[in-house]
């Protein structure tokens, strides 16, 4: 049991990180910390992919010294997926930050509960939870 855990320690860390990020994104009231949670979540997925793509003793698939043996090289696809994931995460973060700036300009707070309260007062009607 412990041996299995130790062997898949990186995966465990990735899943824990994902859970931390997920909970922060879902439950935290502060908008900025929600964005941090989002980034932690994406990073955890990247970590999981990278750790699976890495095999001890293998190198990047660039042929050096004419060695064409497949077992010398790792699969480049996981790294490619991680890169794509990072690009997606960056663009999403940028949009979220822009929205946060807009909200702050209007409501002068980053606390979502407070923003809802202000919006509710402004609309003079019930705001959803």
């Amino acid at each position, binding site marked *: 049991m412990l041996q299995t855990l130790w062997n898949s320690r990186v995966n465990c860390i990735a899943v824990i990180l994902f859970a931390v990020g997920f909970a922060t994104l879902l439950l935290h009231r502060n908008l900025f910390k929600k964005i941090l949670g989002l980034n932690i979540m994406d990073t955890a997925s990247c970590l999981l*992919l990278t750790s699976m793509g890495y095999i001890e003793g293998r190198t990047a698939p660039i042929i050096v010294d004419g060695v064409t043996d497949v077992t010398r090289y790792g699969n480049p696809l996981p790294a490619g997926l991680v890169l794509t994931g990072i690009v997606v995460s960056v663009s999403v973060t940028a949009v979220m930050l822009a929205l946060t700036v*807009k909200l702050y300009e209007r409501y002068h707070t980053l606390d*979502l509960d407070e923003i809802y309260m202000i919006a509710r007062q402004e609309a003079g009607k019930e705001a959803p939870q």
Partner: protein
Amino acid sequence: MSFAVNLPLFCIVASLVCSVVSSVLDGKHARWLSMWLSFAVAVSSLLVLGAVRENGEPITYIMGHFPHPWGNEIRMGLLEGFFSLVFSTVLFLCMKGAKIKLSQDLEPSKSQFYFVMTDLIQASLLVLVYTNDIFTGYVFIEICTLASCGILMIRQIGRTTLASVRYMIFSLIGSGLFLLGVTILYNITGHLLLPSLHEAAGALWQTGQYRIPLTSSICLITVGLAIKSGLFPFHYWMPDTYGCATPCSSAILSGLVSKGYIFFLLKVIFSGFGTEVFYGSGVQNVLFVFGICGMIFGSIGAIRENDIFRMLANSSAAQIGYVYLGIGISPEAGVIGALFHILTHAVTKPVLFLSASRLSDAAGGSKRFKDLQGCGYAFPLAGFAFSLGALSMIGIPMTMGFMSKYLLAVAGLEVSTKAVPTLLALALSTILNTFYFARTIIRLYTPGTPLARVTARKAQAPFGLSAICFSLLNLAAGIFASPLIGLLRQGLEYFGKVG
């Protein structure tokens, strides 16, 4: 092999190019470009549909000539061609019908960016429909999310920003779960292309190896897409979002974007996991239960609303529940009911949003029910289109809504354990639907004095055209449903056929 097999890729690339070009055009030309793009996509989808019919089996278009398990593929079947036809037609009609409203709601200097977003939505819907690669799907899910957020927040009133933040948070939770699911799936199978995934997942399921990771990845992918399409209990963003966005955005989001995610989920289930694995994992029962909850609670939410747009938004949550109910029942009849309901909702909800906006114009911009009294007389066409849409959502015979409820009920009867809950849920939700839609129609046709009878009476033509097209589509598909069901049935067979 005919030339038509190249068209899906051309359409996707053309949408992306148009979105870039639109950003440097002025609003009017960008709108023109965007609309004709949708039209061109609709025509090419027809050609693709013809090519698939002729070929007699699904066509796989290999990009870069690397056959699977490498490379990236586009897959054309009957369902793919048909749904891209429906999606692009609805998008075209939405933009046509909301022409005047859009010019009022958008700042003239920024209006071209709206059409950048619609082009991107068009591109991502096409990719979600056609792609055969799960990671490509993920990337375009995110593009779709960002573009949807764009068409929400472009109407600059304070609440839209707040609503877009909510929308983004729920969407990001969904896509985060989806990405984790894809990662786990890739780790245990080593594949991203759906056909290879199908073989690998089937083999893993049979040997029982990696059972827990496989099941959890199925759960994560399903739940991720369900959250993004707004299944109960994750539908709380809907009323806020659809309530304050410009009506065209609400129509596109509820009619198309959420349906795109569901279609992609079905594609992953049928071509990726395989029905045996998915329906063996038990996840469908979760969808079934939450689908029923969505149907009931969405309708109850709609009854409690005092604002016509928020009512329609809650009703959308209920309709999403119907679709997931169908997916949860069974892989054959249930999914056909779900697919038919996707069509019903895609044709009905946009016209409801557009005509509601027209009616609220007659009430001087108010969305409250008490101000809408008698507005059906001020704009007869909008009143008619709204009433027909509402009747279709209730499920009156001769409309599409009746057929989808019928199909779902028949599908439910085939599965003994799910027959009673399905029928009860359908009955209860129909009663609730009737309650709030009938109340609205009665309110619209109670004689009263609309506040601003004269506002914007001019230029009804674009809205009228789109409302008539939507209503005709609804009636035609409701009356002549059997060829449509035949197409869906054959398409579903092609869907599962992996090769």
